[in-house]
């Protein structure tokens, strides 16, 4: 019984779970009424069954007529119908109640997720955490549902039955029910073992899942290493240990229930003994005996369910404690305010580091409205990091101003509206082509798709605006994904646009046309084009070449002159592309 106290306490203490329950007051009220009607009404079944038997006895004895039977039978059916309707109502509203809470908890969890600060989100860690959290939400609502159900089905009904038994005969009620605590005591003693076995089985299940994932996920490694036979042998031992653990826990869990019932059924012996003698003495009629007997059987069945209640509550409690910190971790909302007012960017002595190591330092450059700054350099020179610095994603040293205002001092919402960055990964959503560009905004997407050279794919029917882009059968190619991300960036661009390797997976001709579109669209925007492909660099306003932590900034021709590395790369590429 103390588990119940704990369960209740654990759910009441934090204010937040109540906040989820509070909105459900109407539902809960209805639930209480139907639940009480049903559960108190449950005693009507045994009562009428007794009355029917008695009536039949009387008719056979000639003291009553068939009309009496019809009356009782009619009443019986009517009462049962009312009781069962209440039951249907109760069942439905308990489930709807849990469904409501589940939806609200998931939404709250998602809200907290999307308002995390990006630096706190690491895809794999957070992903695993969230998957677990969603499972926990399910477990919590399932626990709440079970608790509510069992509260009526077990709690109320047991009290009602017990009251009815006592009303017939207190001595016999005590005598027959004395075996129930015995069954419960036995169950509680076994419970630890059952819990241990089921924990072992769950752990074994996890091991098997990991082993299966390993066996299949590393198939190429095992095959090319010629160790498949050995891995299969290992998998076989894992299967065997899983089988053993599952059988043990399954037997303890499933097969114990009937055994508890046998113990609690010991109570029928006093009923036969005492009840039988009451009838013989004439203090009881057949109806009383039948009612008492059938009431006791139902009581015994119900009491064997009591353990379930405690398990459900305990599980829900553990889950709730795990998700609570996640729900609280959301940051304040920032609203992106798109700004198209032309700006000038100045960098003086700019530096950035990653993992404690300086990537570049002493960078100075400027970018005026309507200009394109092309950035390149060898791999790991920090050019992508420079893009992230400009988008406010990475801290920097030195000076970086937007119209004289230091970038690091800008509000997050303001900066997001000013600088729009297209990263390496296309970061597309499982939505239609149009939605991926419009992102819920009221935007005519076609012109932007044309700028990204996706127009002909749509005209030819190869792509459809209204189809899910990852739908099975025709997924987008890497190049198409990159171009879609390009279209999306332009569609939402602020006054500064950072494009990180937008042409990485398109061919030279497409690159040329996309660059032309970019120029035509640009207007007074400032664009930073980070690329390892240099064929269009001669047409950009400035070039920044990053190498060995230093930058060379100037006109394309100037950088060509000053920096032999840049010249080698440029010439090699243009020679190759031609």
């Amino acid at each position, binding site marked *: 019984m103390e588990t119940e106290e704990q369960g209740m306490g654990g759910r009441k203490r934090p204010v937040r779970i109540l906040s989820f329950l509070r909105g459900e007051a109407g539902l809960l009220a209805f639930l209480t009424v139907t639940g009480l009607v049903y559960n108190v009404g449950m005693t009507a079944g045994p009562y009428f069954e007794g009355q029917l038997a008695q009536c039949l006895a009387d008719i056979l004895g000639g003291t009553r007529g068939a009309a009496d039977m019809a009356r009782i039978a009619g009443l*019986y059916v009517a009462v049962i119908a009312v009781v069962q309707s209440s039951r249907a109502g109760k069942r439905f509203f308990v489930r709807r109640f849990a469904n409501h809470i589940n939806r609200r908890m998931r939404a709250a969890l*998602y809200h907290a997720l999307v308002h995390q600060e990006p630096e706190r989100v690491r895809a794999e860690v957070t992903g695993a955490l969230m998957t677990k959290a969603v499972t926990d939400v399910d477990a919590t609502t399932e626990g709440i549902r079970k608790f509510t159900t069992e509260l009526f089905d077990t709690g109320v009904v047991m009290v009602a039955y017990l009251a009815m038994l006592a009303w017939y005969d207190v001595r016999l009620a005590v005598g027959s029910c004395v075996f129930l605590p015995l069954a419960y005591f036995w169950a509680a003693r076994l419970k630890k073992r059952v819990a241990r076995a089921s924990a072992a089985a769950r752990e074994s299940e996890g091991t098997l899942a990991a082993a299966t994932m390993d066996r299949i996920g590393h198939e190429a490694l095992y095959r090319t290493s010629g160790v498949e036979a050995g891995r299969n042998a290992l998998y076989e031992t894992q299967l065997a240990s899983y089988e053993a653990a*599952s059988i043990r826990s399954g037997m303890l869990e499933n097969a114990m229930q009937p055994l508890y019932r046998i113990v609690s059924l010991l109570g029928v012996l006093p009923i036969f003994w005492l009840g039988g003698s009451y009838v*013989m003495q004439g203090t009881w009629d057949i109806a009383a005996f039948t009612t008492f007997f059938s009431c006791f059987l139902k009581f015994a069945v119900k009491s064997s369910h009591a353990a379930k209640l405690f398990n459900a509550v305990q599980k829900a409690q553990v889950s709730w404690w795990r998700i609570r910190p996640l729900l609280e971790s959301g940051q304040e909302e920032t609203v992106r305010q798109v700004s198209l007012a032309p700006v000038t960017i100045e960098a003086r002595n700019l530096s950035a580091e990653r993992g404690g190591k300086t990537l570049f330092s002493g960078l100075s450059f400027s970018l005026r409205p309507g200009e394109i700054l092309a950035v390149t350099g060898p791999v790991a020179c920090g050019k992508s990091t420079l893009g992230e610095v400009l988008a406010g994603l990475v801290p920097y040293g030195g000076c970086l101003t937007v119209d004289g205002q230091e970038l690091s001092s800008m509000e997050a919402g303001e900066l997001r509206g000013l600088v729009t960055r297209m990263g390496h990964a296309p970061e597309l959503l499982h939505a239609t082509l149009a939605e991926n560009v419009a992102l819920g905004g009221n935007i005519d997407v076609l012109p932007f798709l044309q700028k990204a050279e996706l127009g002909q794919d749509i005209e030819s029917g190869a792509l459809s605006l209204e189809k899910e882009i990852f739908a099975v059968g025709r997924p987008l190619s890497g190049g198409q994904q990159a171009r879609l991300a390009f279209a999306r960036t332009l569609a939402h661009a602020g006054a500064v646009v950072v494009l990180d390797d937008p042409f990485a997976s398109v061919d030279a001709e497409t690159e040329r046309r996309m660059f032309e579109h970019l120029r035509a669209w640009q207007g007074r925007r400032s664009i930073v084009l980070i690329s390892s492909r240099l064929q269009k660099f001669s047409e950009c306003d400035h070039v920044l070449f990053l190498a060995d932590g230093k930058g060379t900034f100037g006109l394309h021709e100037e950088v060509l002159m000053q920096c032999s590395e840049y010249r080698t790369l440029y010439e090699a590429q243009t020679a190759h592309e031609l």
Partner: protein
Amino acid sequence: MYASALLAFVRHFPRECFAALALIVFAAGTALVPPMLLGRFIDALGGGQFVMLLGIGYFAASALAGLFESGQDAMIVAVGQRMMHALRSRMAAKLPKLPAAYFDRHEAGGTAALFLKDVDAIDVLFTDGILSLFANSLRIVAILAAILWTSRGLFVLLCVALPVLFLFTRLVQRRVLAAQSANRSAVARIVACIPETLASFRMIRGFGIEPWMERRYGAMLDDGYRAMDRTNFYDSVYSPIIKSAGAAVVAVMMVLAAGAGPRGFFALSVGDAVAMTAYVLAVFEPLEALGMEIQTIQAAAAALGRIRAFLEEDELATQCLPRWRKVPTGDFAGAPKGADKQTLSASALSGRLCRLWQRVRTCRDSQTLLPSQSPLRVPAPQEGEPLGVPCIEFRNVTFGYAPERPIFSNFSFSVHPREHVVLRGRTGAGKTTILRLVAGLYVPQSGEVLVGDKRAADVLPQERRHLYGIAGQAFSPIPGTVRDQLTLGESDVTDAMIERALETAGIADAVRSLPQGLSTMMEAAGLSEGECHLLGFARAIVYDPRILLLDECTAHLDSGTEELLLAAIGRMSEGRAVLSIAHCWSAAMAETRTIMLGGEE
């Protein structure tokens, strides 16, 4: 489909099946006795007799029925687990026989779901489905027989009521099934939304679309909510209706019995009436379960179909076209989503490999230095190569994942002992494919791929790691200790071999400093990304192979780590034939033999 699966199962486990069936029959039989004894007891009471023996008999029969039921449940669990074990073993045995193309076409997670979720579904099919279906049908038949024995009138009544209620049950369950499948697809979308959000997190924040994403998620939740609500409705209404119907049958039975007098068609004694009431209420119970089981069986049909399809997959001989590889520039690494990742690392790799080759050059003795070749042409096999029998040789190889669309035709090249060759070309040109052909994962449509003195496909499993080592794009740890990462569970790898491999890869010190050295569990070792890479290198050379196959290495490493990796590659390449993949073009590569694949963009 079920029948043959069932038969196969019975043939596999005759003893378990017999025991389970026997227990089911006994449980159903003994469950009939207590109500009958109760009826006798009441009739005796009505006749002024008090027979306690009947009461004791009631308890004894109930206890026996409980024991049988308990045994039945235990047996069903055991049989189910046995079956799952056997099925998974069979599926695992299938894995080595599948062509490599299977693993390209199917994500590992999906195949693992076959092993885990679908086999679980089959277990449910057999235990909750077929075995319980049998148990419950038996219960109904047994109860009906008992009723027929006592009251033919009631039997007729039930013969009318039961089919009607059963049809009603099925109707409800079909509705539920429809609602459930709507719910499942909604849930699948809800579940998928979270990794998607995380993968696009910077975009979502940068574009300020958090409210839209929340609305999208909310709409998905609403879909799930509505479908769930419908399921809940049927779920809630069904059992009360069945219970009410039971009460109605009891009422009709009583009224008819009252009207019939002591000898009529519907006549019943009081004790019989009590027993019959218990029977009638009990006969509807399995009805509900019966409907559920039919549904379980239907739901498991999909799983059964998938597993069967898996077990009937073509084995190694034929290779079919991976479905997603429609785009000619498609990628080999796996799912299409992996493609952009690879392009990403492709550009990141360029500089690193450039430096690698500079380093390799300085490490090598001058004897193995080969004259440079035109980087833009596939070099024709040269006659009279100075270095003897090639380690790797492609002779007029034609290969395409789809035979009608070859990636290369009549392609020939060779790599000689201690020669280092770089493969270049854009994504989709066939670089990774060449490594896969060398590793024997695929077989060319025509021509020959020779590794050592054998065709690649004829290299025996146990010879592979002695012949070549592969260091891939990323190190993926297998479950187990640090030692397991190198041995892959094989017992013929000595500690001395491990030590040497770790030394060459430059990770020996890091491993020594672990709390339990080589026996440290991998997840507890806390190795950095770079160190994991080095461990992957050590794995490739633990058998001291003659050939090293290097797939492109990683992106996003800090330059310190990068140096370490390059140095390790330099040491590993020494004295071995190396075939590696690069994506960039760089002047630094000019001195190494470079093979350009697929021409220009």
